[in-house]
């Protein structure tokens, strides 16, 4: 097997670890970091396929990073707003959309 196949397997494993993190943790910020890991695992897949299917895949990596930056900014702002109200970031305690 070549390095592409191994990288695809690595990226699948990292995506699965990110999934496990989102499911296992209760801390909202760490769940968020696991989502970033999943996004970057997908970037790894896109870069592997850019070698065979065209360099445009790397442009999509760029867009994924921009969307991840926007998502991190808005998501962390939401976490700050929730923390101001509840004084914690444990997702099990959040059950209201409005207070």
């Amino acid at each position: 097997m070549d390095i592409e196949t191994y990288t695809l397997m690595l990226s699948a494993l990292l995506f699965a670890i990110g999934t496990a993190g989102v499911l296992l943790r209760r801390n909202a910020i760490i769940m968020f970091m696991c989502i970033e890991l999943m996004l970057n695992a997908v970037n790894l897949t896109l870069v592997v396929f850019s070698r065979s299917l065209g360099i445009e895949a790397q442009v999509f990596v760029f867009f994924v990073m921009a969307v991840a930056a926007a998502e991190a900014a808005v998501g962390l702002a939401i976490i700050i707003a929730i923390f101001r109200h509840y004084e914690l970031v444990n997702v099990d305690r959040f059950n209201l959309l409005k207070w």
Partner: protein
Amino acid sequence: MIVDFFFVLFAVMAIGGATAMVFARNPVASLLYLVMAFFAMSGIFVLLDAHFIAAVNLIVYAGAILVLFLFVIMLLNLGRTEKTDLRGPAYGILGIAVAAAVFGLLLVMLRDGHTTSMAGGMGQATIDAMIQSQGAVGVIADPMFRNYLVPFEITSLLLLVAIVGAIVLARQKAP
């Protein structure tokens, strides 16, 4: 040979960092493990000849986005090591089973789809020639500003909306 060595090194760093991130009890330690995983992934980007993506991954992802996470952890004063917030055994086994199922599904897709999609590709020589003639940045800049100019501009709009949204959400309410 040397590529294989560095690939194994970076893969072990990435997997170890990601696993340690999921199980670390201190949020700051968790974040630094993720930074280590991202550094290793940048190394793998270099091994795949995506030099520009590797640099952007380091500067934007590890350098900016994760430092934003670090700021929020410290702003909210969550950097203390406390009792673990991992879920209980029943939920934990279920979560790991779901993650293993995702991994298995991806491997099945890899086994069935990989060989056909790789056939008829550009190949290593074409990419090397493109990087030689246009440079590592030019190779990406050409399709981005020729074929994907409108999505690029829409991305800038998205970032503007995200900035405004983040400020509105995180603003201190007047008492």
